[in-house]
């Protein structure tokens, strides 16, 4: 359970001329931006404009048609364990309880996975009382909250990629998430989130906007 404590403020993500092609259609073309620690970048665009695809490319999950990614001093996408990614697919197994889903994920990420840590993360998102209920029985919002609890387990990750983090979230949940994002920003993480033009995520801190 050792965790490397690299100083977070040095992180920098440079993206150059990214083009994404799916099938015959070009989703986006020549996207470039620089992002440094302590900042929050919003990716906006209409439905189907390639926001999720861009986040997946930034996470290193899929590759771009052309363009380069430079994480810090490297010429490639960040190491997998630097990336904290919460996508549209919530990655919760429906047979397992919220507690089990988070604890197994925390173990795989080699983050602290003691019951206290997991419970406090679930409590922050107000799903601790559901910790023994299989995820199949949870509502969409409760599932989203459980999935977002992962953010509190690996708070020190230097790159946060959030795909429409407010989807299905009520105002209380949005407030919690906003606090967590601001806190991570203070600690020096780079936060990149995807949202629609007029989505409530606009309320989140925004230092830079990229429109697809």
């Amino acid at each position, binding site marked *: 359970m050792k965790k490397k404590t690299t100083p977070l403020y040095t992180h920098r993500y440079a993206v150059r001329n990214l083009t994404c092609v799916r099938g015959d259609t070009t989703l986006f073309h020549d996207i470039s931006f620089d992002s440094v620690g302590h900042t929050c970048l919003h990716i906006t665009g209409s439905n189907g404009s390639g926001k999720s695809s861009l986040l997946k490319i930034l996470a290193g999950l899929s590759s771009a048609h052309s363009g380069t990614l430079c994480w810090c001093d490297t010429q490639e996408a960040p190491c997998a364990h630097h990336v904290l990614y919460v996508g*549209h697919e919530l*990655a919760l197994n429906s*047979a397992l309880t919220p507690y089990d889903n988070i604890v197994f994920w925390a173990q795989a990420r080699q983050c602290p996975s003691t019951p206290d840590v997991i419970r406090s993360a679930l409590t922050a998102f107000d799903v601790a009382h559901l910790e023994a209920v299989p995820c199949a029985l949870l509502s969409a919002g409760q599932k989203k909250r459980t999935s977002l609890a992962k953010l509190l387990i690996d708070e020190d990750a230097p790159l946060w990629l959030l795909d429409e983090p407010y989807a299905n979230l009520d105002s209380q949940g949005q407030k919690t998430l906003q606090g967590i994002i601001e806190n991570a920003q203070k600690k020096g993480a780079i936060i990149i989130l995807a949202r629609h033009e007029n989505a409530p995520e606009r309320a989140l801190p925004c230092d830079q906007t990229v429109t697809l």
Partner: protein
Amino acid sequence: MLCVFLALIRRDMAVVLRNGQLSSTLSFFIMVVVFFPLAIDPASLDLAAISPAIIWIGLFLAAQLPLERLLHDDYQDGSLALWSLTRAPLEVIATAKYAVAWLTASLPMIFAALASGMLVYQWPMDAILNNMLTILVGSLLLTLISLLTRCLTLGSRGGKGLIYLMSMPLSLPTLIFGAASLRTHTPTDLNTSIDTETTTALILLSLLLLATLIPMLWASTLALRNAISHQ
């Protein structure tokens, strides 16, 4: 790396146990193996002689089941993508899936196959070790083939039909050598060569496993990576 491997195994074990997959695969296998002798007139046929065919068909069909949910569910809900964002390479994830599929489906089936062989098909008692080794190696191979075909068809629409089309030719050597190395009769004076024949087949089967294990796991990893990047 080992930490991630163990975490994934523990998690998949928990999923399999809660889904009831353990009993469904096992009962499917027992159904196949027990229904055959019930449907065939036992007086007209030597049941022991056709038992290898029945056991291997049962093993082949049942080996296709566990990875469907283990891989497909995790792919659909984004877990595979998330698990790939850990310190462990994707090879570890593919190997963990392989291990869980074999442990939860094939391991119980080995004992079910031996028990049904002894009880239903009257295999000789002194062949128990030989037959156990044969089914052990054969099930490792069949699960490996199932892993590769499932990974290759992950995320493709209409991939279900392809799975069986691909696994048929891949499984043929296993079925042939596996059936040949099951010892179903006590050797008599007339066929003393039966021992050497089954032993040779078992050695060939083991060599097949040793030769294909690493390349197949590697190919499965490539297929997994491809599937995740196209999600």
